[in-house]
């Protein structure tokens, strides 16, 4: 296994979880322990076995295309930490175009 600590910085960035050196060390240790524990799965011979997509092997039900026009903006505003002029607000993103 590659050193989990270096991997962990990458993983933490993907998961967008901030951490300081102490928690990084601790989490690297713990995640490492978990990965060591699950390693035994790799030794299993799964040739010809399809991965499970759903425990009951059923198919997706389809919903009829009917719009329900309920303006929820007041609820959304109430729940949001920062909301003004009907928009969620986040620190400015420097990016041209969308």
């Amino acid at each position, binding site marked *: 296994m590659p050193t989990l600590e270096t991997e962990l910085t990458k993983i933490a960035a993907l998961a967008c979880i901030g951490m300081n050196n102490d928690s990084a060390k601790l989490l690297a240790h713990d995640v490492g322990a978990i990965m060591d524990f699950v390693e035994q799965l790799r030794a299993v011979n799964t040739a010809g076995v399809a991965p499970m997509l759903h425990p009951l092997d059923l198919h997706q039900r389809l919903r009829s295309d009917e719009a*329900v026009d309920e303006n929820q903006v007041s609820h959304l505003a109430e729940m949001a930490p920062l909301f003004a002029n*009907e928009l969620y607000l986040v620190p400015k993103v420097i990016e041209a175009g*969308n």
Partner: protein
Amino acid sequence: MAWETVIGLEVHAQLKTQSKLFSAAPTKYGAPPNSQTNFIDAGLPGVLPVLNQEAVRMAIKFGLAVDAEINDLSFFERKNYFYPDLPKGYQISQFQRPIVGNGYLAISTAADLSKRVIIERAHLEEDAGKSLHEAHPDYTGIDLNRAGTPLLEIVTTPCLFSADEVVAYLKTLHQLLRFLDICDGNMQEGSFRCDVNISLRPYGREQLGTRTELKNLNSFRYIEKAIAYEQLRHQDLLENGQDVIQETRLYSPASDSTHTLRNKENENDYRYFPDPDLLPIKITAQDLATIKANMPPLPAHIKERLLSANTFSREETDFLLSSPAVLDFFDDLHGKSHAPARTIVNWLRGTYLAALNDAGLTFETLPVASTDLAILLDRLTDHVVSAKNAKHVFAKLMIGEQDVDAIIAREGYMQVNNDVLLEETIKTAIANYPQQAADFRNGKEKLLSFFVGQLMKETKGQADPAQINLLLRKFLV
């Protein structure tokens, strides 16, 4: 060194469903921010997605129209990344098993060469919300109305070799989607978005060069310009022995150039995995048969039919196929009026289209009802009004009047078609201008127009000039 440009395209077409892909919120354009965002769209804790039947049907229609494999079992996957316009922190999309597989679209380029563009796949996915950078001085505003709108992402193989081919493909695809009635194709509103993947390789080499992805191209013109710029940029780099960096770049119309986009799009591991809140989509042969039976005629077939009937020129055919609304209106008129088909087309292409443009309207928002226009075209065909006066009548229709015959009567637009009366008037004119008559008989052809002018004056412009011409020649002989 001769370079070959290789291009692959990804088009995101917003499907014209009433509700979103996984929730029942409406999809209308232009609503106040976050007024069409329900709890499922906002990704609240505990909410779950349920798939829109119509979106599936539309995807299948597209697949059938491009002769593609429709996968009888496909499934949704989560594309995981963080961005404020992506409420769940993942986009529900399709990755390993899209609903539509390999197909093709036949195009003909400006040079009249025909080609089959290979469509690798088309899959369903949900759209993200919108970031508004100018909404607030210190913050970026997020509007989630668009989040969850169904998209059909249509991907070609890298099989296009010029901007010309790219535009031909996009126009053909755009037309197809509109005629299938699955997308309104409004590029300004973002319902038809195109990303270009472009790379260069030395002529003759099979291996593709490093590609860059171009985004923010919302007109065919910008696409051409962006390709032109990027081609050169690649060429410069490669000829100077430098590497092209694989990245996403934005086209900026202001500077007519592309630049690196530095955020979510670059270097992200999306960790795709099947969405456990959704089950695999099963499509049966019966489903396909039903949808196939209800397919509208495809533009390619309509074009063939129109051309083979030999009534219309290429330009006229292209005009009729410029949008389903044009064709529908034509068919409607053709059914209601006994005017010849070509007269109808010319009228639509000329007077009608000019009036639409002036008023800022389109064939989708018809200002003049087909019934009224049909009557006008009948009157024209029957020589009840002259072509010139017909235009005047039309102008009145455009401002809201509706009774063609009443307008003709009121304005005195009725053509004088009474041959006897006309003959009398002609004889009088010839008698009044014996010198000109004699000169004409002696070969001065241009004097015919002198008499025509006189007669138009006499009849106050109401005589049919063609008729005048005919009768003059009879009496001036």
